[in-house]
């Protein structure tokens, strides 16, 4: 009995295993995670809590901070929405249709992952500037993209696109074509099949892609600052306001904005996890 009792206490944290190296690997993982990620983020939270509720709400209720947060979240939401829609279309086209250069296009979707944000930023600024390749025709239509919220939106679409495509794509690959055949045999039109048979199981992935693109867009800095013009109350995003506050040595101001953004990041992570556990219950996969 005593042996069994002992093994039960041990297994409370970890199931016994023949594989060695758990203490070393687990210890190293926790130490490194703590030193690089958890303690630094903890320092931010500690600093914010030393401001107190009053100090924190004072920082956030500043009109310039509020408008920066509004611009960041509003445009990120809009960009993620566009990405979710086009991401679905692009993923569908890449999986289902054959056209010349498909493999190349497939690889190109990951470009925003690989291209440094500062490079994307100056390239977009050059393209959409009033004398740029796209900026010039737009200007003829009376549309100003660079140094306006529209420019920020374009940059956020750029950085978020691969998230939207790459989350949906593997699920489209795995769709059982027979289900579509059954639906057609039972008399559904193609549109009905797409809407009522194909789309519902893709919804969790579309939502996850949306949330990932949104999270990335909210925090984005490098690709936005060159095209945004960074005009307070008009095209100033929250991350650049943190940088401005730091340059003013206003650490409390920077910390306040950062904590709000961190809270939104956590909330987005939570939403993604909820979507995935809902999807696991509803469809049996993530």
């Amino acid at each position, binding site marked *: 009995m005593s042996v069994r009792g002992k093994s039960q206490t041990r297994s409370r*944290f*970890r199931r016994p*295993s*023949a*594989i*060695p*190296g758990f203490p070393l*690997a*687990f210890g*190293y*993982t926790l130490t490194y*995670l703590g030193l690089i*990620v958890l303690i*630094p983020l903890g320092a*931010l939270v*500690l*600093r914010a809590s030393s401001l107190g509720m009053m100090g924190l709400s004072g920082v956030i209720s500043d009109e310039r901070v509020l408008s920066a947060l509004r611009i960041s979240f509003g445009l990120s939401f809009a960009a993620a929405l566009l990405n979710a829609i*086009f991401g679905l*279309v*692009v993923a569908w086209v890449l999986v289902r249709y054959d056209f010349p250069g498909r493999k190349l296009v497939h*690889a*190109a*979707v*990951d470009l*925003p*992952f*690989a*291209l*440094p*944000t*500062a*490079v994307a930023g*100056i*390239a*977009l600024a*050059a393209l959409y500037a009033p004398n740029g*390749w796209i900026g010039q025709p737009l200007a003829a239509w009376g549309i100003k993209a660079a140094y306006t919220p529209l420019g920020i939106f374009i940059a956020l679409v750029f950085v978020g*696109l691969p998230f939207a495509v790459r989350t949906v794509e*593997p699920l489209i690959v*795995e769709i059982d*074509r027979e289900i579509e055949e059954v639906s057609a*045999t039972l008399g559904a039109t*193609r549109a009905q*099949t*797409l809407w009522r048979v194909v789309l519902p199981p893709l919804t969790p992935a579309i939502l996850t892609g949306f949330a990932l693109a949104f999270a990335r867009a909210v*925090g*984005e*800095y*490098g690709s936005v600052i*060159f095209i945004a013009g960074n005009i307070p109350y008009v095209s100033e995003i929250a*991350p650049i306001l*943190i940088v401005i506050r*730091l340059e003013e040595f206003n*650490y409390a101001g920077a*910390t306040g904005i*950062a904590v709000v953004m*961190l809270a939104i*990041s*956590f909330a987005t992570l939570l939403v993604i996890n909820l979507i995935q556990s809902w999807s696991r219950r509803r469809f049996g*996969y993530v």
Partner: protein
Amino acid sequence: MSEAPKPHRPTTEARWVRVTTTLVSLVFLGLFLVLPLIAVFVEAFRSGVGAYFASFQDPDALAAIRLTLMVAAIAVPLNLVFGIAASWAIAKFHFKGKSLLITLIDLPFSVSPVVAGLVFILLFGAQGLLGPWLRAHDVEIIFALPGIVLATVFVTFPFVARELIPLMQDQGTADEEAALSLGASGFKAFWTVTLPNVRWALLYGVLLCNARAMGEFGAVAVVSGHIRGETNTMPLHVEILYNEYNFVAAFAVASLLALLALLTLAAKSFLEWRYGDAIAARAAH
């Protein structure tokens, strides 16, 4: 009936729908992805090949390239070792709180790069928690190499681990148990069984980690202090040149980073094409 029937109309869209959506996708991707990439090279060569290469004669540009290489050479191996340790612990053992640990490892991906830089300022900066102690002991972290490395390690933290964890979870422990029962030591089992099983996924993670480490801008911008020739990485040097209206030089340095991105994508696509099964046992992860 000897030939497989072609997919007939009811299981695909009408031709005009296929053509339209394909064209819309291509125009969308061309506008948002390909055009910016082309713009980088066109702007870099705007004043001719001579001006392009002259941009790299500048000692500050060379210093930026050196610093970027050095930062990546430190940050990538650190995260590589972490990725192996984390995936070994998570994939080969069962313990409580595993999914929380995986979430925490992915955390840096959802933190804004600027916030990532800020946390190190709050820890090590002049007004930071450890600032007075560091100054008393003459240790420079912020506005110096250690700060840049720390910020880079933070933003590239999950890359290797997240490639390895799902793959090693799928592979299970049977191979290692066989090696151990045949008398191999734990380290030998890892070195001769586990590591070869995951080598392509490892390379894949390292490639992505390296691309991000060399290209990181926001986090590094906050902690670097922008000292020309000393704490300027390549992306920061691009920013400085651009803000000085030195567009040819800015895009010339940027073109090197764009080239790195293209090489990364090419290598990534090659690995997916050649070793797709060895990289991800499951289609989605």
